[in-house]
């Protein structure tokens, strides 16, 4: 606090010239109920009368919430946060803030990596399109993990043991297979309707959506929203140098992030007939080349297989079991959310084989399904695709 010259202190000791205000006025002044000339008079007296200042000070009412600073030299009321303590508290608060921001950013980064960087984290299996480089060999997957290789080998051996035409790469003899709930069947668009319906998508997060529904209606509604255009753009990532990029199927069941988050993949068939999958709730979509993947599992062909044009999709409510059908009777099945696919060739006892374009796939439950073709034929299965009957 600024000091004053000592002469000022001395000259302030001038005697009070008037008589003391009575106790009522002093009380009213202390209680702030005096105003105008009366208050001026009392203040003027107090300026010159040390006794009355003492009395006013003594007569002040006790403070209920007394300020902790009795001899405050500054404005800040909390002594614990003054000076160095305040500075250290500020530094600590800053560090906590930085750590919090860093943690949030790290988690966000991990989330985006999981959703969109699968091809980068695991370089894609670049399968040159036959139309571009038909003679080019199939590149060996560069970064497929050893676990995946072992898993592929196991799938191949199991597939070879399959007696019927339904070849499965998934271990059906799993003692505790995950129960497959109701499916959401999607009828593929007819050729005349393809121009209108660009995509058929099944969102499988909620059980309500697992009910049988006409996805085409949703697709038309979605076309009108701006977000839809973005999604379609994302759903068609430019294949590198014209080659057909098949996104390697992430090991969904072994991916800790995936399992921890409880995310279910979303499936869709684009207007161009590509089967796509999204792992981030529809923000980004990646092509799934089930034909080449299945061919590699079967190890029957060295040349890339021309992927079929998919028209129909049927996804179970937990998105783990998927049926996809398309041109030339192409019918593919996965029970592990796309980690591995199996080509299914429905055939009847009389040597009849499903040969037309599959336009719709409908499963009323995990076992009973119906496939409609463009020929037109209707094929049904009562045992999850092991046996098929053609309806007359």
């Amino acid at each position, binding site marked *: 606090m600024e000091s004053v010259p000592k002469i000022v202190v001395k000259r302030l000791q001038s005697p009070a010239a*008037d008589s003391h205000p009575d106790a*009522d006025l002093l009380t009213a002044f202390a209680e702030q109920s005096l105003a105008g000339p009366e208050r001026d008079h009392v203040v003027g007296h107090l300026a010159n009368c040390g006794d009355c200042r003492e009395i006013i000070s003594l007569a002040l009412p006790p403070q209920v919430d007394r300020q902790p600073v009795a001899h405050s030299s500054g404005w800040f009321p909390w002594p614990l946060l003054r000076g160095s303590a305040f500075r250290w508290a500020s530094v600590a608060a800053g560090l906590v803030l930085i750590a919090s921001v860093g943690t949030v950013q790290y988690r966000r980064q991990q989330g985006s990596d999981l959703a969109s960087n699968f091809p980068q984290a695991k370089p894609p299996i670049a399968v040159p399109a036959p139309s571009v480089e038909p003679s080019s060999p199939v590149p060996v997957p560069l970064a497929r993990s050893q676990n995946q290789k072992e898993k592929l080998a196991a799938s191949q051996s199991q597939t070879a043991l399959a007696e019927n035409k339904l070849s499965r790469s998934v271990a059906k003899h799993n003692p505790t297979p995950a129960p497959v709930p109701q499916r959401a069947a999607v009828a593929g668009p007819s050729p005349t309707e393809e121009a209108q319906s660009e995509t058929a998508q099944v969102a499988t997060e909620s059980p309500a959506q697992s009910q049988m529904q006409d996805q085409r209606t949703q697709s038309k509604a979605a076309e009108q929203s701006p977000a839809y255009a973005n999604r379609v753009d994302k759903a068609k990532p430019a294949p590198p140098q014209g080659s057909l990029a098949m996104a390697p199927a992430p090991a969904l069941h072994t991916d800790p992030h995936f399992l921890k988050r409880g995310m279910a993949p979303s499936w869709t068939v684009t207007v161009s007939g590509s089967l796509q999958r999204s792992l981030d709730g529809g923000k980004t979509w990646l092509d799934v080349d089930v034909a080449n993947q299945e061919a590699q599992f079967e190890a029957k062909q060295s040349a890339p297989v021309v992927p079929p044009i998919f028209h129909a999709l049927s996804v179970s409510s937990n998105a783990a079991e998927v049926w996809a059908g398309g041109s030339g009777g192409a019918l593919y099945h996965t029970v592990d959310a796309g980690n591995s696919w199996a080509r299914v060739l429905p055939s009847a006892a009389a040597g009849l084989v499903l040969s037309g374009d599959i336009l719709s796939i409908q499963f009323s439950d995990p076992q009973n399904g119906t496939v409609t073709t463009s020929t037109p034929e209707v094929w049904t299965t009562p045992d999850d695709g092991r046996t098929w009957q053609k309806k007359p």
Partner: protein
Amino acid sequence: MRATKPISAPVQSAVSGLLAELHAKGGCEKIGLTRESFEAILGEVATKYLPASTTHADARTFLLTLRIDELALAQACAAGNNSAWELFLTRYREKLYQSALRIAREDSAARDLADSLYAELYGTTTRNGERVSKLASFTGRGSLEGWLRTVLAQEFVNRYRRTKRLVSLDEEGEDGSQFAAPQPEPLPSADSRLESATDAALAALDREDRMVLAAYYLDGRTLAEIARMLGVHESTISRKVDKLANSLRKKILAGLMQQGMARRQAEEALEVDVRDLQVDIRRSLAQDSAVRAFSKKEVQVRSREGSG
């Protein structure tokens, strides 16, 4: 309470107009205050504080600001109403001792202080055959509790001053002159130009500013205490003290330079040590006696017929 001047017509009309309302508000019936006696009390209080030229509206506003219920209780106690006295004791006796303890900061001194005031409040002395109670001087400008604290503080200050002087005289007598402090040699008086410049700067101050300066630099009160006295925030007082100190220094320097001093000379004169200044003890003592002590006095008893 006895009116020292006649009640003006505006005051009387205001009192008459509000009498019924205030009489009921003060609960006067329960404590034995008749309308007539309460009307007289209100008229005297208003006459004491309002100027002679007051208007009816001003008088009415003034009456409405009074602590009517506490005024009625105090006056009923002063008039000797037992039920009022019991009510007063119930409400204020404990607070009286607590306030005394807070002021005296020592239990026996506090009890002595409170007991003496208690006797005055009850009215142990008589005048013209009537008990004289200090409560008769309460006018309801502030709260009765605050008033009790104020009269306690007045009594405490009076006692302190009396004791201080008495002890000084006793010490002088016991120790003898050989132990008396040597009289300091008379110090040269401060430059008269400095005193006049300082007085001029202080005189130019606002009353409240001067009070703040005196409380801070002369009494050594804290900023918080001064803030509570004036009902403002502590930071306001802090800023004001800084501003006043700077302003005073500049004004005194300017005053000295106006009287022909060079700036350097003026600054040296301003910074002169207090040892070089003559501390006018006699004048300070004269300040103490210039104003009479807070009184035993002025309990002006009003003899009221039919009161109580």
